[in-house]
């Protein structure tokens, strides 16, 4: 048993399956948020590049959707996604209510505008002459896009980070579409750190809530460090 496990166990001795419980919650949280952020990033970067460098009809509209989306309340997103995935909704046949997939879906809706918006600012600041150089050296449009992403990597890392921060710390939408389910043996099914904190606080188990809160803060700091590290690893020369 590692030191942190021992510390945690010492804190929660009155609750025998607490450690498993907390670990499974963290796992679900990370699975949902990381998947959502990964998919959002794949979705957001092309959009950011498109908006940043191409002229097309509806660009202004798309930009304002992105800007609005950055501040969209998570409970509203949860509600909309619930209607979409509900048995009565357009995605009803997929049976997604109260599943991690539905939670991923709603977090994509939450994180994608943030990642797009911040990435847009980052790629827009890449100088045109660097893009021209990539083209003139024989690069295709895809190569130019890749160079742009590489040049903007710190900004994009920040964008991904901001998206992750929004995803992992939001409580409204995952509660609504996920249902905050844990199985009877104390393993999380759709319970995330945030919804667990809310539940534990409601039940007056503030100690557990505090532990989960601490884990959430540590997690965000940790992922922050990893992303910054990755960013500077790719940019050893910059």
């Amino acid at each position: 048993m590692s030191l942190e496990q021992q510390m945690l166990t010492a804190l929660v001795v009155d609750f025998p399956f607490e450690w498993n419980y907390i670990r499974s919650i963290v796992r679900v949280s990370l699975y949902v948020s990381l998947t959502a952020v990964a998919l959002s990033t794949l979705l957001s970067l092309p959009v950011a590049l498109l908006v940043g460098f191409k002229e097309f009809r509806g660009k202004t509209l798309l930009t304002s959707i992105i800007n609005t989306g950055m501040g969209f309340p998570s409970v509203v997103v949860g509600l909309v996604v619930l209607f979409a995935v509900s048995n009565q909704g357009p995605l009803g046949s997929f049976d997604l209510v109260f599943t991690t997939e539905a939670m991923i879906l709603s977090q994509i809706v939450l994180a994608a505008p943030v990642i797009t918006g911040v990435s847009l600012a980052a790629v827009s600041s890449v100088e045109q002459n660097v893009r021209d150089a990539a083209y003139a050296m024989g690069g295709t449009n895809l190569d130019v896009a890749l160079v742009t992403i590489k040049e903007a990597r710190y900004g994009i890392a920040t964008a991904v980070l901001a998206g992750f921060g929004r995803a992992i710390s939001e409580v409204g939408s995952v509660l609504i579409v996920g249902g905050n389910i844990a199985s009877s043996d104390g393993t999380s099914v759709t319970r995330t750190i945030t919804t667990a904190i809310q539940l534990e606080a409601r039940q007056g188990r503030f100690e557990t809530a505090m532990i989960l809160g601490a884990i959430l803060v540590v997690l965000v700091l940790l992922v922050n460090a990893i992303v910054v590290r990755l960013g500077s690893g790719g940019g050893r020369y910059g």
Partner: protein
Amino acid sequence: MTIQRREFLSVLGGGVAVGLAGCTGADDSDGPEISGETLTLTTTTSTYDTGLLDELNAPFEDRYGVTVDAVAQGTGAALRTARDGDSDVVMVHARSLEDEFMEEGYGVNRRDLMFNDFVIVGESDDPADVEGEDDAAAAFEAIAEAEATFVSRGDESGTHTKELEIWDETGLTVEEFGEWYLDGGGGMGETLNTANLDGGYTLVDRGTFLDMRDEIDLELLVEGPVEGGSEMLMNPYGIVAVNPAVHDNVNYDLAMAYIGYITSLEGQEIIEEYRSNDEQLFFAEALSEDPNFRQYLPEGWERSSDD
């Protein structure tokens, strides 16, 4: 259902999601038989937060090799979720709403499950002087008279429904109440905390109150029927399966197996013996040697449809 979910995953973006899917573990095992299926139960925060459901569900899951996903919502939300076909079985405590649910065709095979009672709690100085009152309506009237702070759930939960029934009994109109009548706007725990902080009265189910008593300064002032108090404070729980003729996607077989289990000798014994802080929270009600037809039908049903 499982297969459709997988399809969706690959639609959603393939590699990443599938690659990580192993992390969730729980609900994706294959198999043609009943084992591996998931029963979605929507219920109220009061049954969930007391920990009773975990005790009840574990033996059921073991016996059938299934998973019970219990979603704790208010009674109104639990019924709404079931109405949309997003859950298979509902366990709630508001008879009038359950009746409505059945009358509209969404629910079938209702059973009485268990009961406990509500109590009225408040600060020990008791400004409306309701301590020991054996009529809940009279106690409410006194609170309204004194315009002492009262915190309502305000969320269409079973507790809120009960509270409104009692106000109804007093003949007072909730909409006309002044600033002393607060809307807690949340679960039972939050409402208790609000009442605790604002020094107000509130209606609470005995289970949640006993569970949280150590963390708050509120006193039990008006007893419910479990301790020989006001009959009006009776808090009966029912369980209803979602009608498979209305929603063909629901897991009706498993829902009925669950209802069968929970109203069986074994299930009722678990309910009867469940203790939190050495207090009995729920009283089994499903087993009865005498006929109890009322539990299957909306109240007053025989009078309203005599054709």
